């Protein structure tokens, strides 16, 4: 029998068709899929023992407690720390990606002078030469830390050097008793999406402890979730505050009819809001301006005056001034600890030929324009401490240990400045001074982050024992009765997230959804 070309084709075709009924092609496909996804070109995962560490998130001044799963000395996952009495086991959206921040592409690893690589020795020499000439200012973006005490000591020791804090910083002796509030009127503030310690505010709000009235032109996240949204004209928050002041019987307000015309609300709506604030108290008004302070006074708002910190008298240093209060064009050297202050704000105070030195973990924001940028430890890379946020009632002070090593070439900003200025002092001595003052005062209790229950300070045997507890990660919280209530305009933005580098993961919020990771981002879009 002679085979023809047709037979060969038939055999080939038949074999190919028949193979489809065997496992061969499917197994091959399966194997290809598996092998292409498991080769050495895929991203290797960290391998090693998983250990749990506790620390503080220092992306913003709130200092929330963090529980970190770590492998090979690197955090691989974060959750909130329930035993932290202030953050109450919550983190904000950025906090959940904070462990990735030290690897941000804009991470600084060496000093920069006018954008070019320099050395720490050169930077220290330049700082030593400039700071003694004055007038100089040290701007501390996260006041209330032990580092702040060291800066204040530097400012006190050198004539012509002032210690400044951002204009919207809270005050350590003022707190907000949000837990007691039943109604909160927010005049355009991002109460539920970035005001104060975001996770903490939301955890109180979800317990339905307070009603929210949001007065704002745009249907923001807070307005969307508020019990009542007052859609006012843009920029008319202070007018509404004035109208409410009159409706509540106050003086120096704005007649209700006029307030209604200027805000776009009806007089009845303003009157009803005033009635609601009075009848569903304690009520709190948050916003800017004197009218807000007057409203809080009329409403007997749950704003508390904390007792002075136990370490207050032990910390001799320059009194803080608001950076806004410094005369324009008067500063020859600005040392900025942080990256979030807008360049326009810094530059307004500078004299001709002034030098700006920023100490920041990242080369972002104003660092791009500064004369010097010094690399600082990023979150979780050093022993950190944080004062109570102003949206909390009690005074507290937390410490969290480093949970990963800082890269070479990174310096503690306050110690770098003190050393360059020739001032004796270290962060450890400042922290020890605080711990000894707390122990001597016998005030409050300490919650250790590793799961221990809160211990009263008066029950601890020695200051050294308290130091051990604090440096392992703990929060001291005051239990002393708050002083007399006084009234002020609750700071409009207590702990705003920096406009600097959010974690790369959080950029997905911007890029792939209709959400903003920060209130600042939302405002930018608006």
């Amino acid at each position, binding site marked *: 029998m002679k085979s023809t070309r047709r037979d060969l084709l038939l055999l080939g075709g038949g074999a190919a068709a028949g193979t489809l009924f065997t496992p061969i092609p499917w197994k091959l496909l399966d194997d290809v899929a598996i092998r292409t996804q498991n080769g050495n070109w895929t991203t290797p995962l960290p391998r090693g023992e*998983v250990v749990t560490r506790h620390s503080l998130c220092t992306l913003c001044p709130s200092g929330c407690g963090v529980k970190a799963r770590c492998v090979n000395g690197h*955090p691989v996952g974060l959750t909130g720390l329930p035993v932290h009495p202030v953050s109450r086991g919550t983190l904000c*959206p950025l906090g959940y990606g904070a462990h990735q921040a030290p690897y*941000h592409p804009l991470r600084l690893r060496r000093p920069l002078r006018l954008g070019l690589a320099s050395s720490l020795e050169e930077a220290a020499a330049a700082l030593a030469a400039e700071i003694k000439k004055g007038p100089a200012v040290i701007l501390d973006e996260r006041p209330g830390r032990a580092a702040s005490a060291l800066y204040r000591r530097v400012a006190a020791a050198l004539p012509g050097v002032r210690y400044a804090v951002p204009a919207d910083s809270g005050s350590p002796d003022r707190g907000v008793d949000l837990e007691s509030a039943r109604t909160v009127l927010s005049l355009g503030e991002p109460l539920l999406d970035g005001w104060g310690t975001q996770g903490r505010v939301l955890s109180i709000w979800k317990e339905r402890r307070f009603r929210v009235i949001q007065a704002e032109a745009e249907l923001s996240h807070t307005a969307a979730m508020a019990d009542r949204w007052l859609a006012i004209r843009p920029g008319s928050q202070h007018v509404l505050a004035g109208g409410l002041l009159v409706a509540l019987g106050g003086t120096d307000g704005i007649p209700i009819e006029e307030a209604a015309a200027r805000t776009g609300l009806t007089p009845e709506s303003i009157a009803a809001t005033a009635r609601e604030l009075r009848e569903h108290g304690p009520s709190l008004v948050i916003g800017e301006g004197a009218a807000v302070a007057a409203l809080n006074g009329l409403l007997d708002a749950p704003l508390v005056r904390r007792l002075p910190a136990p370490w207050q008298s032990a910390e001799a240093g320059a009194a803080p001034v608001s950076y806004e209060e410094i005369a324009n064009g008067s500063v020859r050297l600005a040392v900025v600890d942080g990256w979030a202050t807008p360049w326009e704000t810094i530059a307004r105070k500078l004299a001709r030929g002034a030098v700006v030195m920023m100490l920041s973990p990242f080369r972002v924001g104003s660092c791009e324009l500064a004369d010097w940028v010094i690399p600082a430890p990023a979150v979780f890379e050093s022993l950190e401490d944080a004062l109570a946020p102003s949206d909390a009632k009690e005074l507290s002070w937390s410490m969290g240990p480093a949970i990963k090593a800082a890269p070479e070439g990174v310096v503690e900003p306050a110690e770098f400045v003190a050393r360059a200025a020739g001032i004796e002092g270290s962060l450890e001595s400042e922290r020890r001074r605080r711990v000894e003052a707390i122990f001597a005062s016998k005030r409050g209790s300490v919650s250790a982050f590793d799961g221990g229950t809160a211990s009263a300070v008066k029950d601890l045997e020695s200051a050294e024992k308290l130091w051990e507890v604090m440096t392992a990660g703990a929060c001291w919280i005051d239990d002393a009765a708050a002083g007399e209530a006084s009234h002020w305009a609750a700071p409009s933005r207590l702990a705003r997230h920096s406009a600097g580098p959010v974690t790369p993961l959080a950029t997905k919020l911007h890029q792939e*959804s209709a959400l903003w*990771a920060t209130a600042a981002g939302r405002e930018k879009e608006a």
Partner: protein
Amino acid sequence: MARYGMVIDLDRCTGCGACMVACAAENNVPPAEPRANQRTGITPLRVYRVSNGESGAAERAAFVPMMCMHCGEHTPCESVCPQQAVELDRATGIVDQMPQRCLGCRYCMAACPYHARYFNWFDPAWPAGMERTLNPGVAPRTRGVVEKCDFCHARLHAAEERAAAEGRNVSAADWKPACVEACPSQAIAFGDLDERESETAKLTRDPQSFRWLVKLHTDPKVYYRSRRAWVRALADQGGAVPRKEARNG
């Protein structure tokens, strides 16, 4: 046997996005590729902003976290997958995705009525050093495969191991997905829907609870609840239009 599910309280969700970031960190989702957009990026859990369609002072908005609904019947993605890369685990009720089997045909994406599946258009890449922060329990997916929410299956495996070491079966109290853990307003309840007396199962029977597109009879195991009637009315319209897409036209 369990039937894990969620109830998401939309009256508590402020759209902060903590669940999205926690989900991405837990599941080793790489940082956003510069070219990625809302269609080509990877967000196993995505929070949409929805509106009541009014304008001015009458407008109202809500935030809807959307992820795989873990359909219980006629699971559309499972039935169309030619590679058996999708499987409804009858022991847990979780719809599993096995990227190692996936060929990237994207039939499942076309079949999913909830748009809860994402295709890896780009090679996963992390900035130098950041791979040290990856969760060792979850393998990164490569370019060319589909992924989705699996209720943080790695956490379930870890809980099963712990329970086995203690000589007992795993229960819903032993673990929870990253989004549930992260939500600062605790809007997401998670549990075994077959445990009729559990808090989560009780919430599913609440008159204010609903599921998206029940008319398709997919039996989703993710429930939502809201006291706002207009939000509940969206459920069968499939009309959750994200604001960004509306803005982009």
